[in-house]
C-alpha cells in the first residue's frame, strides 16, 4: 500500500517537476491520438459518404413491365419496401402522342416531386407547381416541334389535351425529346398506367444485388435490370478511394507514431541521471521500469482524451468542408486509438529502459 502511494507520489512529482518536458510529451501524444481519431472517423464514414455522392447519377436499377402491360397498382410501395427507406424511386408511364405540328413525341407521366429527388442531374429552369394538374415540362428538343408553347395541345388516340408549359428540361439525353406531365392527368387522358419504375439504391454492389433479388421475388413477371455502368463504376471508385485512404491512414499513422516514439524515448534517455540515482538509492530494475511505464501511460491516457476531442472535431470539419455533411464523433474508434497510443507509450518507455539497464549507476553519477 505504502509502496503504491510512493509510486504515485514519484509519478506526480516527476510530471510536475519537469513541466516543459511533460508538456511536450503530452502534446506529442495528443497529436498522435488526434490524427488517429480524425483519420479513423473519416475512414469509417467514407463509404457511406462516397455512395451518397454517387446518388447524383440517378437510378441504378430499372424495373420494367413486359411490353404492352403495366405494373401492378401497388408496385411502387412494394419497390420502396424492398429497397429500404433511403432509396429513391419514381414511376414513369409512356405514350407516343402527336403535337400540334403533327410530330410524334414521347409523352411521359411522372410524379414531379419523386423524379426531382431521383434525377437531380436534370436541368430544369422551372419545376411545375405540384397542384397544377396540367403543367408540363418540355424537353429542349421537343420544344422545337411544338407550335404554341403556352398552350401545348397533344393528341393521343384522337383525344386532345392542352397543357401549360411550366418549364424546359435539358439533359443531353433522351429526356430532351420528351414531354413530361403529371401522372394522374396522363392516365386520365391516355388510360396508360406506369410501366417503368426507376430506383436509386444507395450502397454497395452487394446491396443492389440483394434488392434486385428481392424485387424479382416480390414482383414476378417484371424485368429487373441494373444500370450496369453505374453499379460497376460506383463500386470500383468507392473501392479504390477506400484503398487510397487506407494507405494514407497507415502512412500518416506510421509517421506520427515513429516521431512520437523518438520524442518520448529521447525524454526518457535524457533522464539517465534520475535513473542512476534511484538505482543507487536501492530501486530495483522492475520498480524503475514501472515508474517509467506508468508515467508514459499516464501521458498517453491524457493524450488520448484530448486527442479524441480534437480529432473528432477535425474529422467533423473535414467532412463538413468537403462533403457538406457532418461526420459525428464515433466512440467505436476510441479503443483502437487508445490501444495505438498505449502501444507507442509503452514502447517509448521500455526501449530506452532496456538500454539503461546495463549502465553502472556509480559510473553515471560520477559523470564518466
Amino acid at each position, binding site marked *: 500500500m505504502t509502496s503504491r502511494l510512493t509510486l504515485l507520489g514519484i509519478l506526480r512529482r516527476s510530471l510536475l517537476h519537469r513541466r516543459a518536458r511533460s508538456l*511536450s510529451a503530452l*502534446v*506529442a501524444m495528443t*497529436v498522435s491520438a488526434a*490524427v488517429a481519431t480524425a*483519420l479513423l472517423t*473519416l475512414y469509417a464514414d467514407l463509404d457511406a459518404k*462516397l455512395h451518397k*455522392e*454517387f446518388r*447524383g*447519377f440517378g437510378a441504378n436499377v430499372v424495373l420494367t413491365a413486359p411490353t404492352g402491360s403495366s405494373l401492378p397498382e401497388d408496385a411502387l410501395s412494394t419497390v420502396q419496401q424492398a429497397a429500404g427507406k433511403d432509396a429513391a424511386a419514381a414511376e414513369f408511364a*409512356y405514350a*407516343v402522342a402527336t403535337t400540334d405540328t403533327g*410530330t*410524334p413525341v*414521347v409523352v411521359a407521366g411522372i410524379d414531379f416531386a419523386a423524379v426531382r429527388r431521383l*434525377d*437531380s*442531374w*436534370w436541368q430544369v429552369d422551372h419545376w411545375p407547381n405540384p397542384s397544377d394538374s396540367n403543367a408540363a415540362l418540355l424537353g429542349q*428538343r*421537343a420544344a422545337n416541334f411544338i407550335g404554341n408553347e403556352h398552350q401545348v395541345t397533344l393528341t393521343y388516340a384522337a383525344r386532345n389535351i392542352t397543357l401549360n408549359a411550366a418549364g424546359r428540361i*435539358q*439533359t*443531353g*439525353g*433522351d429526356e430532351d*425529346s420528351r414531354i413530361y406531365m403529371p401522372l394522374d392527368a396522363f392516365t386520365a387522358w391516355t388510360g396508360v398506367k406506369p410501366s*417503368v419504375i426507376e430506383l436509386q439504391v444507395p450502397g454497395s454492389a452487394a446491396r443492389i444485388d440483394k434488392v434486385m433479388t428481392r424485387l424479382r421475388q416480390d414482383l414476378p413477371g417484371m424485368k429487373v*435490370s*441494373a*444500370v*450496369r*455502368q*453505374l453499379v460497376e*463504376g460506383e463500386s*470500383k*471508385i468507392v473501392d479504390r*478511394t477506400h484503398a*487510397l485512404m487506407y*494507405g*494514407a491512414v497507415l*502512412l*500518416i499513422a*506510421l*509517421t*506520427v507514431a*515513429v*516521431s*512520437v516514439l*523518438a*520524442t518520448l524515448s*529521447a525524454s526518457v534517455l*535524457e533522464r539517465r541521471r534520475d535513473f542512476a540515482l534511484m538505482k543507487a538509492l536501492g530501486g530495483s530494475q522492475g520498480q524503475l521500469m514501472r515508474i517509467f511505464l506508468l508515467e508514459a501511460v499516464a501521458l498517453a491516457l491524457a493524450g488520448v482524451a484530448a486527442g479524441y476531442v480534437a480529432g473528432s472535431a477535425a474529422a467533423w470539419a*473535414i467532412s463538413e*468542408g*468537403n*462533403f457538406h455533411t457532418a461526420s459525428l464523433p464515433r466512440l467505436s474508434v476510441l479503443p483502437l486509438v487508445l490501444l495505438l497510443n498505449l502501444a507507442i507509450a509503452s514502447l517509448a518507455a521500455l526501449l530506452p529502459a532496456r538500454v539503461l539497464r546495463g549502465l553502472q549507476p556509480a559510473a553515471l553519477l560520477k*559523470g564518466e
Partner: protein
Amino acid sequence: MFFRLLLESFRRQRRRKLLAGIAILLGTTAVTAMLALATTIGDRIHKELAVYGANIVVYPKADLLDVKIGGVDVKPASGGAYLKESDLDKLKTIFWANNITGVSPEFRMAGMMLVRNTTTGGPFDPRVIWHWNDPRMTGFGAFPVTAVGYWFQHRFGTLVTGAPQLHPWWQLQGRWPVERGITPTHGESAQEIVLGAALAKRLGLHIGDWISMGNEFEGDVVGIVTTGDVTEQQILYPLDATYGILPVGTDGKPVDEAPIDISRVDISARTKPEDAFARVNPDTLSPQKREIWYCRPYANSIAYQIREAIPGAQAEQVRRVEQSEGNVLSRISGLMWLISAAALLAAGFAVSAAMATAILERRGEIGLMRSLGASKGSIALLFYAETGLLAIFAGALGYLLGSGLAAWLGARIFAGDGGAAEAILIPVLLPVVVALALVVAIAGSTPSIRAALKMDPSAILRADA
C-alpha cells in the same frame, strides 16, 4: 573551425542525428506521397469515371424527334438529317481537341427486318436480314431488328477509339470486328460483325456463324456482346460497311440513306468540373469574359466549340454523366488534399518535436561552447546549419522515397487501367518538400535553441556534471 565543428557533430553524434533525420525523412516521405497522389488523383478518377461513357453527345441539328422509350425506337425514323463521317475530322481542330479522349460515331439502321417466307409460313430464317425498304421484301413477313454501325479500334488522329472505348461496361465474348472487308464465302462482300446477346440467343446464332444482310452482304459473327440495355437486341457492324448493308434499288443505287452517314456521335473529353461560370450563356458575356469561358475545358465550352466546328451539328453535354462526375471528382480530390494537409500538419509537428528534443539534449554542449567564449550568434548559426543540412539531406531522400511510395500505391490501387503504373516523379514537389522540411525543422529547433542560449552556461554545466 565552423566547418570542422559542423562535420564533427555529424560524425560523432550519429544516434542523435539519426533520430532527427528519421523524423524528417518519414515526414517528407508521407507529405511527398500524399501530395503526389493528390495531384494525380483527378486524372486517375477521371479514367475510372470513363465507365460512365460519353460526356458530350453530338447529333444532327435538324433531326426528327427521337421517339424512344427505354432506348427502343418506337417509331423508326426514316430519312432525316445526318452528319458526315468526314466532318468528324474537324473535331481535331477545335481549341480543346487534345482533351478529347474518345470518339464513337454511330449509324442506326432501325429498319432492318428478319425475314419470314410467308408462302411457306416457315419460321424466321435467322440468316436473312434485309432492310425494310428492300425490293425483295414484298411478300415476306418480317420482324424488325436494329443494326448499328460503329467504329471499332478506329484510328482517329493519335487516338485508337470507337464503341468499345466509349462503352467500357459492354462485356464481349469473342472479339471486336476488324474494320476491313474479309474474304466472302457466302455473299458478294463480307464483314465481321458482333451480335447482341439477346438477339444471338433468339436467332440461335453463335460465334463463327454468318448472316446474310441487305445487298448480298455477308456478316460473320466474331463476337457476342452483353450490355444490359437494348444493344443486346441489335446487330453491331463496322460503320464503313454501311454501304454493303443498304438495299439497292432497280437503278443500282442505294435506295435509302447515303452511305457512312452518322446519326449520333459520343465523345468523351477531359473536362473541368462545372461551376457557376460554366453555366452562363457565352453569347451574353463581354468579349474578354467570353474568351476566358472559351478557353476553359468545361463540357459546355467544348460542346460550344464542336457546334462551331461542325455545321449542322448540335452538341450537348450529357448532364447525367457530366454533372455528377464533376461532383465525385472534386469530392475525392478534395478529400485527398485535406488528408495531405493533415499529413503535412502531423509531419510538421513530428519533425519540430524531434528537432526540439535533439537540441534540448545538447544543452551541455551549448553551455560548454558559451563558457569557452563562443558568441550566441555563432552557436545559433552552427545549430541552424546542422539543422539545415539535415533537413535538405533527409528531405531530398524523403522526396525520392515518397515519390516511389506514391507510384507503388497508385499502381496497386489503380491497377489495370493502363498507364496507371507510370512513375510519379513530380519535379515541382522537390523544392516544395525540401523547403517545407527546412522551415519546419528550423521553426521546431528555434524555441529550444533560444531557451538553451538564454540559460546561464555555468548552470547548464553544473546540472550536467
